[in-house]
């Protein structure tokens, strides 16, 4: 038994590939638990960042700087009365949030946080991801239909039309990225002769192809990779129903869109699914175009010195966060009423600092590298999501469709064709 568990550690593959059920379960727990925590953190960060965009403070009362707000929200939502409208189709109403949740979490099965840090590596990883993530539209339609109410129905219809049409453009962008895995063409950073030259749909394979070709696909065939990435970046916002494409839940038009009739825990499942989907599509974008888990410049800034410099980043980031927390401690009002909060914030800063220090320990430092760079890139996308939400007005339904079908899709097809041609010619 112990051999079974330890035997995996010496292998150089994901637990899914090596067929080790124990480690696969551990990975699943870690990934899903981590995503749930990330969603909670994202909830707090979004409220805080949005508030600061809008000259507000955001949550400040529950815990120091509202740090415990997500937990308070979770308790509130779980203890809230769970209302199922009398006229609703109860079974469908019950199952819709679960479908959305499962669809958005299942994507993480193939998301590679590192060369071996994935639950499994499917040879059709990208296809699996596209297929599973598009299942969530089913949950949206079911939720809208089962509510048996006008506004959710309109929201669900909007959502299904939106998700289906943006999936096409998204698919075109993804296919052009897949094509790049097999094409040797010259990127601005040159090309290595070591490239195997065979295409792959595996998520890990795509990241490794970027390393072999010495270029992020974002910069490959210069404008082409960039445009494909742009299409994906727009389509993924539409796919996750976020501003400026948040029509299905357009608050000012449809009150809350497809989840108007939901409350309490079921509603929170929708939110959990939405945020998990945001992180999932961002992970995909990072995997396909931004070099996945690789640190910046893995091929041009080589050598032990550079490796050391980049490996210090995770610890430094955590130390920086700890410093911000301690700055917050200093700026806390000096009043007995705030003593508990001040101590709490100091403790939080201490934990962050401790994590930062642990991350400097060489064995941890080397193992955490991949995950850190992956998460950092995804976090960049998360910030973009918040930024969009603070900046843009909402598209109208017909304009949304126009952008999807008349702009993104033709450009996507053009990029795909040009990528193929360039790959053959160069």
């Amino acid at each position, binding site marked *: 038994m112990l051999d079974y568990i330890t035997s995996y550690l010496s292998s150089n593959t994901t637990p899914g590939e090596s067929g080790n059920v124990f480690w696969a379960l551990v990975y699943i727990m870690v990934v899903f638990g981590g995503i749930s925590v990330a969603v909670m953190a994202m909830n707090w960060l979004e409220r805080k960042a*949005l508030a600061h*965009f*809008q*000259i*507000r403070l955001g949550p400040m009362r529950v815990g120091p700087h509202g740090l415990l707000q997500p937990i308070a929200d979770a308790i509130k939502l779980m203890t809230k009365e769970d209302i199922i409208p009398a006229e609703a189709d109860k079974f469908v109403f019950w199952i819709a949030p679960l479908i959305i949740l499962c669809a958005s979490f299942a994507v993480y099965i193939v998301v590679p946080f590192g060369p071996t840090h994935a639950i499994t590596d499917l040879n059709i990883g990208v296809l699996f991801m596209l297929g599973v993530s598009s299942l969530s539209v089913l949950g949206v339609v079911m939720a809208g239909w089962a509510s048996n109410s*006008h*506004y959710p129905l*309109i929201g669900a219809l*909007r959502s299904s039309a939106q998700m289906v049409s943006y999936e096409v453009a998204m698919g075109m962008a993804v296919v052009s990225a897949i094509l790049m895995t097999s094409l040797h063409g010259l990127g601005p950073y040159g090309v290595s002769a070591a490239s195997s030259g065979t295409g792959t749909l595996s998520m890990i394979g795509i990241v490794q192809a970027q390393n072999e070709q010495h270029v992020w696909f974002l910069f490959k065939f210069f404008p082409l990779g960039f445009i494909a990435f742009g299409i994906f970046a727009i389509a993924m916002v539409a796919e996750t129903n976020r*501003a*400026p494409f*948040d*029509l299905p839940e*357009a*608050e*000012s*038009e*449809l*009150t809350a869109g497809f989840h108007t009739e939901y409350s309490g825990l079921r509603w929170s499942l929708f939110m959990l699914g939405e945020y998990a989907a945001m992180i999932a599509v961002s992970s995909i974008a990072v995997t396909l175009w931004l070099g996945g888990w690789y640190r910046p410049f893995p091929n041009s800034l080589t050598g032990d010195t550079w490796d050391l410099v980049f490996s210090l980043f995770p610890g430094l980031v955590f130390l920086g966060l700890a410093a911000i927390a301690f700055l917050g401690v200093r700026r806390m009002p000096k009043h007995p009423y705030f003593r508990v909060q001040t101590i709490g914030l100091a403790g939080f800063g201490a934990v962050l600092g401790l994590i930062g220090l642990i991350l400097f320990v060489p064995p941890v430092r080397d193992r955490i590298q991949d995950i850190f760079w992956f998460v950092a890139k995804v976090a960049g996308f998360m910030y973009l999501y918040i930024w969009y*939400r*603070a*900046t*843009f*007005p*909402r*598209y*109208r*339904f*017909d*304009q949304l469709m126009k952008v999807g079908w008349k702009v993104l899709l033709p450009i996507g097809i053009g990029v795909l064709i040009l990528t193929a041609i360039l790959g053959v010619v160069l």
Partner: protein
Amino acid sequence: MGKGQPGDRERPIIMTDRTMFDLKPADPKRIDEKYLSHLELGEPDKTFLDSNELVINMGPQHPATHGVLRVILKLDGEKVLGTECVIGYLHRGVEKIAENRTYTMFNPYVDRMDYVAAVSNGLGYCEAVEKLLNVEAPPRAKYIRVILTELNRMASHQLWLGTHALDIGAMTPLFYTFRDREEILKIFEKYCGARLTTHAFRIGGCQYETYEGFERDVIKFLDYVPAKIDEYEELLTTNRIWLERTKNVGVISRADAIALGVTGPVLRASGVKWDLRKAQPYAAYSDFDFEIPIGTNGDTYDRYTVRMEEMRQSLRIIRQAVEKIPEGPIMAKVPKVIKPPVGEVYHSIEAPKGELGYFIVSDGSTQPYRIRVRPPSFVNLQALDIMVRGALVADVIAVIGTLDIVLGEVDR
């Protein structure tokens, strides 16, 4: 629709003690059917898979109907075939209350009509009664009135911009406009103690002299706010999504606008240069130099630009007024008990939302015999149907926002 609710028209709506005519409908159809018959104005393009039109109820509790407006929408998919506004959810009988109050006592009530532009409402009422009494406010009072009214126009437009942008999905301008509106409200609070329902003016002038440092506060605000207006514009004016959402949305032609009696920025955006501040100057407006911005297309974007420019023009007026403000008394000679001669008067001013008129009938007693208010929001709301027919649901929201209605004024 329940019995006795405001939309229940089978129940006679008695506005005065006397029943003037029978309000019972001739055709005793079911209420719902009656409503639908109003909406039988368009038909779906084609019937597909036994689809038919959908009647949905937007409001009275809806985040984007600016209070308690209820719009019954008949939809073909997302296309609007017809609308009907049901109002009265905020009806407080302000006009009826006036009949049981003295002229002075009624003055604070008018603040509760358009509660985001309370100062303008008070100005209109005070000037109407002054016209009836045949007295004129002293020049200093007039200047104070102009300064406060124009500040209030700014505040009203800022609130409009924030909520309108929020309806269209841009969250952030709301907080920026409210931040700057706060500065205006602070000036009001310092001047008369109230922020929203100010009751700033009295019949015959102003009750309060300007406080110490009033001019300095106003000038500080004037120096502070132009950059902030640029900031709002930076977020919206050239934003591609904003342009797509507002250009050619809710178009109302010049002829339609005039025929419907629409006033204010809505009328001016359709290209009609009609502003009561210029057309029939009241208070001290003839002393100031300012432009009337007009639009060309009469769409939502033009209404937006017109209002933005109006904010800047308001600043111009305020600056001139603060610089030229004369010394002197602030109250005309008005009797303690106001007892106007028998007669009637109509006086209208350019409120932020359009022409705000007061028709007062006096029977020679201390209480008005009848006061009729011509509220700009109520009249402008009539244009909603022709502006949104054939548009999409999202446009209805945009148009309700761009009409800048305040339900307190629509229902009174």
